[in-house]
């Protein structure tokens, strides 16, 4: 693989050709704010906060770094130039007006110096439409329970027809990757609900401690995927951890006995 040289904020950096610029910056300890980037998922390019200013020869432009593959030597990248800050703040202002109730969005805006918005803060939910939940559900989990619905300002993430999803396995990956607290997992009395989609799941109790740790559908889904290897599933993560720790302790004990002699 060919190596490409560039500078980011004046710092000389090299990377493999076709690496995404955001990844290169992060790998070199240069922080760029993002809402729709997740290391486990392909970049989507939705939030437009990871803007950087690129200069190549006589060309100079602002670009979203997450979807920009570094292909040529000699790029000069500025991650915090005046222009970048201006555009980033404007996009942040639009997102804050959309999600005024999201603590995460508020904090991020504050860090950028955006306290107020000039457009009314009339957004109704905490979703910034970053697409992480949709992508994790489709591409990593493989369930495809949620998707984007509608377009333009009516776009939202939802289940088919807005009804509790039949294919959702209740794994909670969507809530895990959600950067704004819009999707959350609520558990009570042996039941798990994925909010705001209203999908409810029965939890399976851990054979050891009795705590509900996995949904029935998730367990069936994993057993089907793992086939013969399903035995690794047994028990809740806490009990599995304890068992593993006990095994390790035994190993240590057996190892340390001869050394003492």
């Amino acid at each position, binding site marked *: 693989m060919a190596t490409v040289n560039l500078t980011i904020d004046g710092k000389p950096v090299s990377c493999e050709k076709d690496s995404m610029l955001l990844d290169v910056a992060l790998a070199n300890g240069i922080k760029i704010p993002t809402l729709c980037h997740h290391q486990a998922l392909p970049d*989507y*390019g*939705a*939030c*437009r*906060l990871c*803007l950087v200013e690129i200069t190549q020869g006589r060309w100079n*432009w*602002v670009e*979203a770094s997450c*979807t*920009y*593959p570094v*292909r040529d030597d000699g790029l000069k990248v500025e991650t915090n130039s005046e222009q970048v800050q201006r*555009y980033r703040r*404007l*996009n942040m202002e*639009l*997102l804050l*007006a*959309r999600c005024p109730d999201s603590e995460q969005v508020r904090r991020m805006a504050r860090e950028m110096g955006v306290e107020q918005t*000039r*457009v009314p803060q009339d957004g109704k939910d905490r979703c*910034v*439409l970053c*697409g992480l939940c949709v992508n994790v559900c489709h591409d990593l989990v493989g369930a495809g329970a949620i*998707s*984007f619905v*509608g*377009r*333009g*300002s*009516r*776009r939202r993430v939802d289940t088919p027809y807005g009804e509790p999803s039949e294919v959702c396995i209740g794994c909670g990956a969507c809530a895990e990757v959600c950067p704004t607290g819009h999707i959350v997992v609520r558990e009570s009395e042996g039941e798990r609900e994925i909010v705001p989609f209203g999908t409810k799941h029965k939890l399976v109790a851990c054979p050891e401690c009795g705590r509900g740790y996995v949904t029935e559908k998730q367990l069936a889904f994993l057993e089907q995927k793992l086939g013969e290897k399903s035995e690794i599933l047994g028990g809740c993560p806490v009990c599995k951890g304890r068992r593993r720790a006990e095994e390790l302790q035994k190993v240590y004990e057996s190892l340390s006995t001869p050394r003492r002699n």
Partner: protein
Amino acid sequence: MQELAESLKRDSGSKPVVSVCRGTGCTSSGSREVHAALQKAAEELGMADEIEIKGTGCHGLCELGPLVVVRPRGVFYKRVKPEDAAEILQKTVKSGELVERLLYEAGGQQVVCEHDVPFYKKQHRIALRLNGLIDPMSIEDYIREGGYQSLAKVLFHYSPEQVIDEIKRSGLRGRGGGGFPTGRKWESCRKADGEVKYVICNGDEGDPGAFMDRSIMEANPHAVIEGIIIGSYAIGAEQGYIYVRAEYPLAVRTLQKALEQAREMGLLGKDILGSEHSFDIAIARGGGAFVCGESTALMASVEGHVGEPRAKHIHTVESGLWEKPTTLNNVETWANVPVIIERGADWFASIGSEGSKGTKVFSLVGKVKNTGLVEVPMGITLREIIYDIGGGIPGDKAFKAVQTGGPSGGCIPAEHLDTPVDFDELKKVGSMMGSGGMIVMDEDSCMVDVARYFLDFLRDESCGKCTPCREGNQRMFEILDKICAGKATQADLELLEDIADVVKNTSLCQLGKTAPNPVLSTIKYFRHEYEAHIKDKRCPAGVCRALIAFSIDPQVCICCGRCAKECPVQCISGKKGKPPAKAKEDEAAGKKKGKVGEPFKIDEQQCVKCGTCFDVCPVGAVKRT
């Protein structure tokens, strides 16, 4: 192919041809009935075997439809009605006389032949050259006019590289809006790694008021198909797709039929015309989302995904449809290809301007006398299109602006009317070529309202993927709405400019990057109109309802009561009769006083400002302020 064309020519002999425009415009003004009446009249007059009555694609001058042209002479009849059918056949076809009332008139002079009509005179038709001549449903008609000979020529006499070289030398640039050099696109795709490659024809014409591609697909589908097959040979593709929106049912039907005919004749399928090139085309129907005209969104849609764009740093010629090298060109671009091969790159390059070669089709609509489809050489000025071809503004009103390039194009004011129509020149004045929409506006258009209208379209058609386009277009629309309602401040105008800037520079695809054009260009050229709305709470063009009021001048009112009769909310009161002033005069002169009226009045509280009273008042007593 040549022999076939000649034998077809011999068979058809020299029968007179009566072509009836069956394009969408003329069909909606009744050409179906005219077509049927002509056929019936031909039977009744016993002329059915001596003449050919042909339903063709769009002739272009939709304003004056239904259009009928009698060939070989080319006599041009406008606004033909079914009852004119027999007379046309008897007089014009049989004895060479003219039906004068149906002729085109310009400056008091009657014009007989189609090519002398000013609308057609300045046009140069390449993509539309066979519209009006051939029956779109007949492959024989296309072949008779030389069709598919370019395909035969490249398959047996050109290497793929030679085809690419010819297209490169012709200077053809993409007609879909981007203006990317077609030959270079093909070359990159040919050189891209991969066994499987695709070609796509973009027929997802989504601009409101645009019908260029539709007319080509409906009038001359085989030209598009021939172009695509030539392209597939040059690139090395075995499968192609034509993406057409489902709202164009006639285009879909016409293309389907044309594809069947081409397959039957061995022009598609395995070993085309006995060569070693195999290729076929499928139709992919789109759901009518504007964003699906964007190449990556279109490809996602063909693949069965939601039509949303992706970043294009890795070009589609390297990784497009199903991640294979893909060449996507617009309908009009494909339709130009066979003609370039037939007449040569040098011929094509001799037409047009320095950086933009050949011709461009525009759908000329709005406040212009001759609305319709025009094809002009690149480099012609906007003034020539609007005034010489379009015939100027109706009702002697003043020209205000022309919007080129579809909803996300800019509005060009009168001072730039001499701008040549060219990919680069239009960009310089803040607009773009786009796919060829051209909307003319007169003094009665409020430019803030115009920007609001287009942003309303764009905020709805944004796919919603990226923040600036989704949120920004919505917010720009809200601010424009506020300005039109007279509720905005100067700070709102600054915010509008800020948002336009961020949407333009940070959106993911071209829809977002160009969406602020209507806003930015109207602020640039018509800032005074924005300021009038904001500072003076006044709409200079008298369009924005919140900022206008209607009143009746009692001195001018003739007490006829028409305003009150037409008012939809009955907010006008008064008494019909002789105006009081006139009654007084008559009385003084000793004449009969008669029934004395009372000047009419508008109740401003009830008025919905529809403007009907203003339009119907015969003496101009209704004032709009």
